């Protein structure tokens, strides 16, 4: 049975299942995830199509797609999947794999935002919103979106000029370091 052999040689599928801890191969293309996906209209590859591409071992096409970065982690797909596939976690795993394998990210803003956010947490133990936004703007070179909102938010006390550091900030920095070491061992 050549099909079975091919399936078993699909290292991409195996890797995604191992990392996400969820049975991607159980997907039978009912498309319930895609139907309920709020971002569906903005995606080229719907979530059920991503599942299928993983079955087919289309590693590069999946990891290079912008769609894995558009997922808002709303968990509607995970909640509704009749095969209990945690599709939102699959999207997380795909993003991590895309970054690790240094594939060309078609729209890197999602990754730039994550990096800016986590850098702020590793320094302060909490998010320092204004600092995080400046770091993100510098990375993305997207200076104009929402620029007018900053003044408004400052006036309403929604942004502070200085970080509110946690007393455990140093412990958080250690946790970041050790978490990165743990990830390398996965």
């Amino acid at each position, binding site marked *: 049975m050549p099909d079975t052999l091919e399936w078993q040689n699909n290292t991409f599928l195996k890797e995604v299942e191992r990392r996400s801890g969820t049975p991607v191969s159980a997907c039978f293309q009912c498309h319930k995830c895609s139907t309920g996906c709020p971002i569906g209209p903005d995606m080229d590859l719907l979530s059920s199509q991503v599942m299928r591409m993983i079955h087919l071992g289309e590693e590069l096409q999946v990891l290079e797609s912008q769609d894995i970065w558009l997922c808002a*982690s709303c968990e509607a797909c995970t909640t509704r999947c009749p095969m209990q596939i945690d599709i939102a976690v699959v999207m*997380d795993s795909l993003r991590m794999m895309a970054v690790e394998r240094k594939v060309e990210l078609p729209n890197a803003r999602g990754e730039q935002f*994550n990096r800016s956010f986590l850098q702020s947490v590793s320094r302060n133990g909490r*998010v320092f919103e204004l600092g995080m936004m400046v770091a993100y703007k510098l990375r993305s070179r997207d200076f104009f979106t929402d620029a007018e909102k900053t003044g408004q938010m400052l006036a309403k006390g929604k942004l502070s000029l200085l970080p509110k550091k946690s007393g455990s900030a140093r412990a958080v920095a250690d946790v970041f370091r*050790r978490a990165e070491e743990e990830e390398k061992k996965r």
Partner: protein
Amino acid sequence: MKYAFFPGCSLESTGWDFDRSTRAVCRALGIDLVDIPDWVCCGSTPAHTTNASLSVALPVMNLQKAKEMGLPVLTACASCYARLRTANHTVLNDPEERGRAERVTGKPYDGRVEVRHLLDVLVNDLGVDAVREKVRRPLKGMKVACYYGCLLTRPPDIVAFDNAEHPSCMDRLLTAIGAEPVEWPYKTECCGASLSITRSEIVNRLSHRLLSMARQAGADCLAVACPLCESNLDLRQADAVKAHGAIPETPVLYVTQFLGLALGLSSGDVGLEALTVSAESLLAGIGRDQ
């Protein structure tokens, strides 16, 4: 009723009015909140999409602190709630991940510190009747669309204290304080969450859809329990309208702001001045501050 309170980053910045109103309402209802000392960020979406070990370890740091306090944890932010519950679920069910979390934090943790959402405690422990008894200014005639968003009810095996597809806890609370929650189909539809920063045009589309459906269902305002939902629907409302067409200005309040007003607190006590779309039109109907 005493809880270790986890405010989370948004409640001390963009959602400070959620923090103020949560504390005020708990005080009025006899719920004692003790802040977790030196709490740290839960990691939110950036952590779970970047580093799985980190996404468990950051919430676990807070749960370890709560364990030392000997108290169950209460949180108001829907996203923090989901991350804390998910970390407990992971540690309880996956010995390998538990080992990883303990190595990363450098401390033992068994996944057994209870994590509750404020709404869960109000509806299921205190009870809507107890809330009703304390009402001093019923929100008579106020038509509210209760918007639960994603993470209060999803994924249900981890967070659920209410129905995942058709939750009702906020509706029951608002009914108890005299308001009239409307039936509407988008209670748990996503607002786009943190895509507001990276892809604001998507959030504009989703927010517009939510606001116009709430209006079509007869609501004059929305109740939320998540700082990101609040900011996407309130701060970004003008952008959504500009991109997708006119909707009457629709105030979006935290559920705790509605509760506080009904309990007789002033608009300042619940931080109404933080809203972008003013709630003035709503206050006119229920009488001024007492």
